């Protein structure tokens, strides 16, 4: 069967928005437009280009001219086959209509993508982040950590209390002795804020809030918290967290939908945050044991935290929190610490503890 030579088309002259209904004849050297008001005009193949019609369902669109070209639209995509058949040697010019994949294959590909994302999310990205985190130089972490610590210090009054700081440093030295602190140099500072809080920035920067020192009942409690915070540094939790988010941020930028990605990374951060806290608890206990400090301080600290949470009534559901529930942490710590008793000495002597307990009072 001979290919069809005549095709119904629409012509726009590029000067006005008027539409001309025309008929197009496929010739060997070009397309000839036949219309009452525009007469027979031939577009030679080498003066025109195809600008749409790659999708099988789209009209085919030809253009001729510069920035505001004449346009010829042919609704029936089979015209491309006709050109290929009737004008051999012009194949370079024609972009073939490309059928998209079937709905079944689209669904299969989308499902495969979901699966790939799940694998990447639960296994690939964390594994990659952990191995990269292990190779990040300590000096880089120190740079980040010092600016984080400086930012925290700026939000509160600094606490200029050399005796308290010295007592804190003594505990840290005891905990970090014999290589237990990893390759880091620990820099502890106290901020004059009533919040019961302490945080560890990458590279060994530890910030303790006055409120925590005040509420602690013994030096062993402070030592327990410090052992926990130091493990965040040793296990590089912040560095891993940042690295885990990078791939998702990239995808967000790619699809221009960062809000959805933010939800994914935030829930992820919470999930890994809880795992990180448990790891720091576990390794913190091990550090205390090796340093000969009683684990009961850390446990007592969390028990008091649990009691005050109970008074306030309720807390966030576990999946919406970066920290595991205090009750479950106390239970885990008891189970771990209870297995073997060991001889311990108090983390500080009475005078040092008094200085630490009343930190920032004297100015």
């Amino acid at each position, binding site marked *: 069967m001979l290919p*069809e*030579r*005549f095709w119904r088309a*629409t012509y*726009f*002259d*590029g*000067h*006005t*928005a*008027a*539409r*001309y*209904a*025309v*008929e197009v004849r496929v010739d060997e050297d070009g397309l000839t437009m*036949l*219309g*009452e*008001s525009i007469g027979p005009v031939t577009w030679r193949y080498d003066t025109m280009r195809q*600008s*749409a019609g790659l*999708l099988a*369902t*789209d*009209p085919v*669109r030809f253009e001729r001219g510069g*920035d*505001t*070209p*004449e*346009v010829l*639209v042919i609704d029936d995509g089979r015209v491309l086959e006709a050109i290929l058949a009737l004008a051999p040697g012009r194949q370079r010019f024609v972009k073939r209509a490309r059928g*998209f*994949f079937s*709905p079944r294959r*689209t669904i299969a*590909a*989308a499902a495969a*993508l*979901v699966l790939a*994302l*799940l694998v990447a*999310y639960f296994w690939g990205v964390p594994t990659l982040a952990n191995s990269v985190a292990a190779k990040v130089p300590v000096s880089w972490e120190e740079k980040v950590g010092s600016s984080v610590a400086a930012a925290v210090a700026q939000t509160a009054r600094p606490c200029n209390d050399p005796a308290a700081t010295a007592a804190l440093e003594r505990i840290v030295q005891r905990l970090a002795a014999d290589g237990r602190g990893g390759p880091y140099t620990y820099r502890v500072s106290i901020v004059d804020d009533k919040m019961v809080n302490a945080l560890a920035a990458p590279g060994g920067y530890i910030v303790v809030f006055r409120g925590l020192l005040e509420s602690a009942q013994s030096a062993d409690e402070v030592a327990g918290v410090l052992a926990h915070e130091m493990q965040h540094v040793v296990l590089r939790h912040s560095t891993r967290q940042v690295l885990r988010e990078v*791939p998702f941020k*990239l*995808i967000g*930028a*790619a*699809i*221009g*939908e960062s809000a*959805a*990605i933010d*939800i*994914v990374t935030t829930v992820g951060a919470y999930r890994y945050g809880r795992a990180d806290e448990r790891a720091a608890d576990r390794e913190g206990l091990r550090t205390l044991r090796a340093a000969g400090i009683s684990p009961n301080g850390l446990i007592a600290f969390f028990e008091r935290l649990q009691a005050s949470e109970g008074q306030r009534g309720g807390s966030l559901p576990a999946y919406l929190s970066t920290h595991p529930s205090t009750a479950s942490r106390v239970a885990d710590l008891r189970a771990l610490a209870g297995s073997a008793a060991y001889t311990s000495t108090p983390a500080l002597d009475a005078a040092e503890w008094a200085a630490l307990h009343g930190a920032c009072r004297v100015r």
Partner: protein
Amino acid sequence: MNRPSSQQHDEQWVENVEVKPEFRGNGGEFFWICAKNVLLTILTLGVYAFWAKTNNRTYLYSQTQAGGERFTYHGRGGELFVGWLKAVVFVAIIVVGLGALSRALDQPLILLCGYFVVLLFFFPLALLGARRYRLSRTSWRGVRFSFRGHYGDFLRVFIPGLLLTAITVGLYFPFFHLNVRRYLVEHTRYGDTAFDFDGSGGEVFGKFLLMVLLTPFTFGFYYYWYSAWRHRYYWSHTSFGAARFDASIAGGPLLGLTFVNQILLMFTAGIAWPWTACRTAKYFASNISLSGPIDFARIQQDAKTANATGEELSGMFDFDLVGADFFGV
């Protein structure tokens, strides 16, 4: 098929025409374009994002038709990339300059105030630049759209409006929003023919107050009815020559559209985005229309917009973050 015997301009007459847009794309097709975009963007560490954005627009525009003719997007990824590089240099100069100034004078406050002022002037510049860029690269029936607004003029609408909104604790907002819309619409052209806008803030104000009062008591649901009403109001006060737009966007369907889209995105970790984008395009396209007398043969191409000298400068502000959607452009 024989040789044609009669052809003519379709519309030489000047009588009532109804131009109804229609979105013909589907998520299944768009998915493959997006999948390629994401893959290449990751492989190129983000550089491909500009081409990805262009691919998306090319698809979405070309799948939208009005009166039987498809829209065409002429933008190119390279333009966006160059524009972005310029924007980065521009922003870097401002940030470094302000930082140096505040250090030299030992006044951290200068940095903060400086950023605020820069943002205040940057936002309208970006809003205008993005609109100018996109319209200049959109055509229909072979004729380009364009934007003829001037930054200085727009500032006189934008800055006082923003300040009044702040002073009145937001009460002036509907007037501000409408005036911005008016400026954007009235400086938009198709070929050599301008769009017009005759809405008035006073007519929106009552609905706005109702929205502020009802939204908290309806768990935010009422906002969708207000938003739909505002879409209808804005469109029905927009005209093109002697023809007028109209919209049938309604609160219930708008809420349903948003809700279902969010659910789809959440349960597929975002993979449903091509489908949700098509759903949104389909809804808005099929609920807007233009009717009245239009003489297409008299709408002239205005060629100078196609190679405007400020092309790359405007392209530089083609970010999605600058609230083009916020002003319903």
